[in-house]
């Protein structure tokens, strides 16, 4: 892995040539060909709905025998449920116990041996392009490369499914916490830009109003974890890529795409990233939140496509350690700080210790630091 993975381009770009690789799990039927121009709504692949289905352990949650689950279902197999809608209900003495759908989708089947239901999210395995562009190549049944032109911001960690919607910047400054009072019903369908971080209560409110995405500077681990089903007592389990999973938290987060641009903790968003999102306020954006730092690398991306520029060449840039390049520091002691490169890379040898490539950086507060190249990312 390398700094500025996976593109070798700065983290913030505008009017840029972009390549989006859409990877699929399972054995999908690919519906597009190389050279085809795509609209965001175009279905590019169709997967077996059962592949991405969510297992809902109804018998466990209701505390009833597996064979009694069928009687407790609100609607028959094949019915659609909205996220949060009651899926099954039973009476326990004077009170009612319910199980709600963790995600909007179709009830595929009920395993009467275990009392577990399968709920296929979304529209039954059809995968839309989300992004306008041209299909560059189709890699068997594994992936499609789409070329597009537009602006892009690379995040560092994300959860959830890819989403599309208008950008709504709610924060006035990149270091603000997103407040509950800022969440209003008109955010339905929007990708919301908070400042530094958002609490679990605020994120829940966003789900309730139907927002599709949330971009913040940092994730507070405890707040995020409290939103998700507690499948294990281990707080770190959520952030591991388990064998067979496509990305971090693949099987947990549904309904809202979450992206942090800086890392974990209440971290202010980099000013260049915040400025880009402010600049494109109200524009249609696409969030690809998948994150994976081992094996097949994935990093969250926020793309604001320019459909009218598809027939023109966008800019191409390579992230380089040149004087004046905007950077952010990413080692833990300086996380959230930013500045510009103020020198050229050189090598430092500590006595008999390991050699380290280093560079000088002038921070935004005027302080000058010498940092290892490994500890900075080129933003623009």
């Amino acid at each position, binding site marked *: 892995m390398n700094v500025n993975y996976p593109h070798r381009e700065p983290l913030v770009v505008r009017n840029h040539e972009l390549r989006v690789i859409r990877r699929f799990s399972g054995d999908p039927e690919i519906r597009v060909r190389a050279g085809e121009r795509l609209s965001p709504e175009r279905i590019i692949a169709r997967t077996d709905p059962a592949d991405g289905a969510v297992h809902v352990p109804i018998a466990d949650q209701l505390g009833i025998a597996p064979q009694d689950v069928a009687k407790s279902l609100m609607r028959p197999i094949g019915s659609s449920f909205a996220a949060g809608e009651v899926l099954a209900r039973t009476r326990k003495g004077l009170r009612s116990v319910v199980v709600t759908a963790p995600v909007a989708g179709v009830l595929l089947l009920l395993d009467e041996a275990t009392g577990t239901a399968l709920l296929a999210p979304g529209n039954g395995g059809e995968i839309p392009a989300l992004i306008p562009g041209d299909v560059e190549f189709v890699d068997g049944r594994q992936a499609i490369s789409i070329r597009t032109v537009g602006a892009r911001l690379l995040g560092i960690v994300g959860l959830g499914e890819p989403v599309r919607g208008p950008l709504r910047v709610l924060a006035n400054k990149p270091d603000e916490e997103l407040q509950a009072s800022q969440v209003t019903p008109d955010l339905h369908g929007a990708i919301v830009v908070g400042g530094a971080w958002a609490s679990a209560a605020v994120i829940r409110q966003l789900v309730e109003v139907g927002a599709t995405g949330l971009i913040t500077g940092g994730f507070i*681990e405890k707040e995020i974890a409290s939103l998700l089903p507690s499948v294990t007592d*281990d707080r*770190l389990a959520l952030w591991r890529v388990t064998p067979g999973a496509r990305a971090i938290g693949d099987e947990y987060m549904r309904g809202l795409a979450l992206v942090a641009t800086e890392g*974990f903790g209440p971290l202010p968003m980099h000013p260049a990233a915040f400025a880009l999102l402010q600049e494109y306020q109200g524009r249609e954006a696409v969030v690809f939140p998948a994150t994976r730092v081992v094996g097949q690398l994935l990093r969250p991306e926020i793309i604001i496509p320019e459909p009218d520029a598809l027939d023109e060449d966008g800019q191409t840039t390579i992230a380089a350690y040149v004087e004046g390049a905007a950077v952010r520091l990413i*080692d833990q002691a300086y996380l959230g700080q930013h500045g510009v490169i103020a020198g050229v890379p050189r090598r430092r040898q500590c006595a008999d210790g*390991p050699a380290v490539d280093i560079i000088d950086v002038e921070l935004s507060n005027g302080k000058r630091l010498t940092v290892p190249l490994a500890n900075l990312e080129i933003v623009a």
Partner: protein
Amino acid sequence: MTDNDTLDYESLLVADFGRGQSRAYLLEQVAGAFRFVAKAEAPTTADLPFEDLAIGWAQLLRQLEWTTGRAISLRDGVIQPQAANGDGVDGLLVCTSLPDPVRVAVLEAGTSPITTPLLEAIKRAHTRVFHVVAPGGRKDGGWAAAQTEALRQFRPEMVILIAGSNHAEALPRVIQVVKQTTVVGSIARAVVIADDQAQEHGLTAFGASVRARSISPVTKQPAEIAADLERELLEAFRARASTPDFKHIVAGATGEILSRAHAVDLVNRFVARRFGRRVVTIGIDDGVHAHWASPDDGTLATIPNVDLGAGISGLTDRDVEEAKTWLPFEASTDELITWVLNRAIRPWTLPEHPRDLAIEQALTRQIARRAIAEITRTQPLALSACDLVIGGPAFARWNQPGAAALALLDCIDAVPNEGVVDLALDQDGLMAVSGVLGTVDPALASNVFEYDALIHLGSAVVIGGSTHEGDLACRGEIHYESGEMAQFSVAAGSVEILPLRPGETATLVVRPERRFSVGGNAAGKTVTLADERKIIGGLVGIIIDARSRSVANGDKNRAQKVKQWLDAVNGVTPPAARRFA
């Protein structure tokens, strides 16, 4: 070994491809011995954004060429053999930990002599192992359901089913687990080690979708079965490593491609046999690997999904909570979890700030102790018999020899029988290099190891027993070869350093108090370390460790104590003894 044995190779290049970092080493004949000459290190480029291992490899070769001032490669690869003008090398050797480990489940019903050698063999073949033994009693107690769930999450690629003696109650449970796990679809291959009906039942359980075969434990010896399966898994490892870019690089390679952990294990066993030592080596690089060997035995514990890079999230929150025990300051669990998660998403970052270094050192102990615990499970007496502990490059990158020495002592966390344990660092990762080299020419490997591999940190004298903190634990004196002498005293619960320069020898007399002992010696018995047991100096000096065991047990002033220990070994506080004639 004679010099004539080593004349076939004038120089060799060794490549070590890791998931995060790759290294290239140049080894050469220097004054009649085969020596380590130069090393290059750079990020591995197998993943995005490059997706081509050759880019990083070319960078490594350029670094080596720049350092040594000679040409090593041409456009189409490494120049072989070495030319008269010194350009090129006589051979290329390769080890790697790049491919994902094969996930192997070993399901055991009844007791079988095959299990122990089989598990040892599997661990050497770059695998992740899930091993369970089915209960033999009448009551299942939910065992099958729990194991099925765990096994489904593990997603085994290969399952080895062993039916030993007295499997009547246990086999149906294993069969049930197998049947419920095959539906996940991850199992490609299966091996049933059983006889008669058990063999038939086992094969049937895997169904038609799994390529299953059987081995009879009657017709083959356990060691033979283990060797066969190790070979099969090594082939799978090599096949998995053989991406087109990797194949191109290793096209001209000499010898077999080994996993890094396997190469280190070979050298660890060599050290034990050659020098009559009981040695533990801890490597944290693409997983954590603990190797233990005595002159006539050895074992390897490997946890491939836990390390200090992206694998740091392989730690549990309990591990992280316990890591606070090793910190010289107070920190909340939330802060440490955030630290771990930030490291997991940016695994290449280097700790520069003292607080970050301290957290990394604390987590290193937790990670290493997990692997060490695996060793003690199979070899309960291994640690108390140990007299040499070697830390891999992860311990060297802090550039704090004292902190590295203390971390190694804390990982072992035992009072050695002899009372003394030597501490060393494999700073450049040359144990893996020697291991690969050993498959081609053991004499050359021995040269490289003996001359260049280890940096001696010093010897630690561990005082056993405990009373109140601060009570006197021992007194003593150190007699330097120069004729100087120094006296010292060490309080219970503390660590003190006696200065002794690298390579310098000294005689040490330790007089423990009534309730204390030097290692496994009788309480209060004076021990003199002289002649063959003479102490040899290192980067840190001699460590007198009078902390009560287990060192992991914390109390209310823990952070302050850890700071005192670290200050002592890092030279912040003055040593316990001053040299005078």
